[in-house]
């Protein structure tokens, strides 16, 4: 059973491997592909955490929010379901299908709920609706002992736990899923062992994050998002990245490239050499959102239903490589992981430090 560590404040340490695969034409990519890609980087993990995100996983419920909940304590399920029913309209509930395997000892219980917001909230617009979902997630994570929300987006499935990437894939039957965008992560933590909630991806609404690195600015970032009602309860620094992006993009209305420039801002020496309008723009972003700057080594992939963002820290202390063939794009920690799924890529390149890679579905692509 995944035991939440007792340390009162949590921050992830360690190396990791990550990969994201996007079909820009919106065609479903099989779950097997991301598993084989991630497993080629087994060296980057130590079996203490792996996970996957699948965008386009639930076409039959695509208009509902899919809430995946992990139960360390079976007794918590009643409380969670009562809370969900009190705030939202429950369309469908079921246990997440798993295969009991030897390599995964004593797993927690997983359920998924498809929920619709009540009509009065829908009328208030998208922001109120998202706030309701975020508020519900925060409530469960913070207040209900033994229950943790794994994901809460529409048409999004997230599977994660303690184990090597192949074992977690087998446990959650990854081969049964497909989607236009897949993310995978294998973890090499030096603390928080055995905690299923500490595995990546971390998600909020439509955002999911996989992350390799350590956030030295964690305290600054955490206290910043807390000002806006987010609560960091999962004992890892990656969680704060998910909340930062939600805050910057959804609440503060920044376009994605601007949000990336906040997380990994250009150096002042470079800003000062820009032409005046650009200089003012980057200065205003840095000055106004200084608390959202991520410091320390990181490579991050952030998935959303329309695409993927890849971002390195300002001095590129973690690897990140992009490969492409036709509409199929992969971003990963290692080129080998890209070649596993795109054996003969047209392009392979390593983005510069702090340079955001934003890849989206082509216009009109189904998803």
């Amino acid at each position, binding site marked *: 059973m995944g035991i939440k560590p007792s*340390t*009162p*404040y949590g*921050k992830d*340490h*360690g*190396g990791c491997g990550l990969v994201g695969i996007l079909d820009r034409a919106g065609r479903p990519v099989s779950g097997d592909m991301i598993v084989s890609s991630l497993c080629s980087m087994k060296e980057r993990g130590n079996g203490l955490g792996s996970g996957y995100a699948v965008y386009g996983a639930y076409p039959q419920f695509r208009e509902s929010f899919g809430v995946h909940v992990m139960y360390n304590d079976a007794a918590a399920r009643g409380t969670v379901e009562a809370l969900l029913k009190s705030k939202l309209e429950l369309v469908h509930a079921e246990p997440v299908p798993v295969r009991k395997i030897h390599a995964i000892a004593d797993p927690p219980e997983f359920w998924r709920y498809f929920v619709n917001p009540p009509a009065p909230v829908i009328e208030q617009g998208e922001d109120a609706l998202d706030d309701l979902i975020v508020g519900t997630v925060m409530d469960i994570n913070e207040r209900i002992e033994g229950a943790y929300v794994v994901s809460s987006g529409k048409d999004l499935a997230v599977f994660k736990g303690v184990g090597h990437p192949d074992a977690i894939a087998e446990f959650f039957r990854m081969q049964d899923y497909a989607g236009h965008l897949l993310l995978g992560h294998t973890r090499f933590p*030096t603390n928080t062992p055995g905690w299923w909630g500490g595995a990546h991806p971390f998600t909020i609404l439509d955002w999911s994050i996989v992350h390799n*690195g*350590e956030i*030295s*600015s*964690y*305290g*600054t970032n*955490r*206290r*910043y998002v*807390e*000002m*806006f009602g987010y609560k960091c309860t999962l004992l890892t620094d990656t969680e704060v990245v998910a909340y930062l992006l939600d805050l910057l993009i959804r609440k*503060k*209305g*920044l*376009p994605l490239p*601007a949000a990336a420039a906040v997380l990994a*801002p250009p*150096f*002042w*020496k470079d800003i000062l050499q820009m032409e005046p*309008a650009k200089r*003012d*723009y980057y*200065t*205003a*972003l*840095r*000055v*106004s*959102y*200084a*608390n959202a*700057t*991520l*410091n*320390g*080594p990181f490579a991050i992939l952030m998935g959303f239903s329309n695409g993927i963002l890849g971002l390195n820290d*300002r*001095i590129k*202390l973690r690897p990140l490589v992009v490969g492409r063939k036709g509409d199929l794009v992969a971003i990963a920690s290692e080129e080998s992981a890209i070649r596993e799924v795109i054996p003969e890529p047209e392009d392979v390149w390593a983005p510069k430090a702090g340079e955001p890679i934003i890849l989206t579905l082509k216009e009109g692509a189904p998803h």
Partner: protein
Amino acid sequence: MLYKNPYNNYFDYVVQRDLDKCIRCKACVAQCSYGANFYDADRDVIYSTDANCVGCMRCSTFCPTDCIRIVRNPDTFRPNANWKDNNMKDLYKQAGTGGIIITGMGNDKPYTNYWEHMVIDACQVTNPSIDPLREPMELRTFLGRKPDRIEIDKKGDMTTKLAPQLVLETPIMFSAMSYGSINYNVCESVARAAKELGTYWNTGEGGLPKTLYQYGERTIVQCASGRFGVSPEYLGAGAAIEIKIGQGAKPGIGGHLPGEKVLEGISETRMIPVGTDAISPAPHHDIYSIEDLKQLIYALKEATHYEKPVSVKIAAVHNVAAIASGIARAGADIIAIDGFRGGTGAAPKAIRDNVGIPIEVAIAAVDERLRQEGIRNAVSLVAAGGFRSSSDVIKAIALGADAVYIATSALMSLGCTLCQQCHRGRCAWGITTNDPELAKRVNPEIGAERLVNLIQAWSNEIKEMLGLMGINCIESLKGNRDRLRGVGLSEVELTALGIQQAGM
């Protein structure tokens, strides 16, 4: 009643002179501005009137043969754990004079110094430390109101305009010291250093001599309860305006500049007659509540066309968090908080040593409170009062300050030895005196160079420490209390500071 004041005998210091080494050059006689050393021509010997010695070390420093030792007077009262030396001496003085005891510089009592109970985190293995000699390391700091959000239109152009900001190349500024409390040469030294360093100096409440207007873009002009030297030109001359409500060394009372120090230039700048005591009122007589402060903030903004940030400086007192919250809501762009170890040119000793709280806990409380109220980004926080080193500065920023003010440290780099005689206007180091002969002891060019050296040294140390924390810009340290741990503090002290015990 025939009575001799015991204090006359139980003075603090004794000047010991090795007559074998003394060459009768009389440097010590010339250097002592308190009349402690004199030359007896008949005997060809230099003697000292020990009772006059303030322990400033000027004579021993300038003795070419190193023959002088300033030692604590071994002649002491009978030991008494309750009645300490200074309790007794102060009492005798007051019985003799009926006066309030005035002193200079900051609180020297052995209260807990929390900087000395906080340690800093470093990277090992999982997170590479960053080498400031090889990678960029950014200390640039912006002080002023930050927008709640930045609007970007459909074309991708920004439509938000930033409120006026102070731009610091290092998060250290020179704190308010008025012209008059320090002399012109010291003001010029500090102004030149601020300009060269890309930081700011603060006029204090004494106005700004016209000849220093050239440093205006690096000057914070202060508006205090006495309104000394405040005019439209003065407000327009600086980069920011600071309303001084209180000072850490003497919370709740006004400024004191003894008439002995009010000479020609000071009189002109302050707009008061020569030789008058410049005692500014305890409160601003147009600020009796928070809404009055708001009016003054906006009056100053109006007067300067909303082109300059307005700072409000308060002393750190028990309820500082709630007060700061009110100040933020009253429209201040910067809040400067001055802890009880901050210095002064003159303050009643009873107040200096007993009123206010340490800056460490004040900054922690204010930062936390403003976050709880969701208004932390609306204002910048400047911590002041007793910063002695770069590590004190780093810890203040990790607790939640945006920048710090230093003044005592700045004066020490000009020679100050903390003898606490600023109020007498006879400073042997030429700092807190307006006597032209003594003031010449500070050369603005050399003074500026020493101040620049100090701040550059601290800035380099800050860069090293950021690097070892794996951080390459100062904003990622702000309020990052995870990088601090407490050692030797009680649980309630840790809670007040918002940090964890080392080992946890």
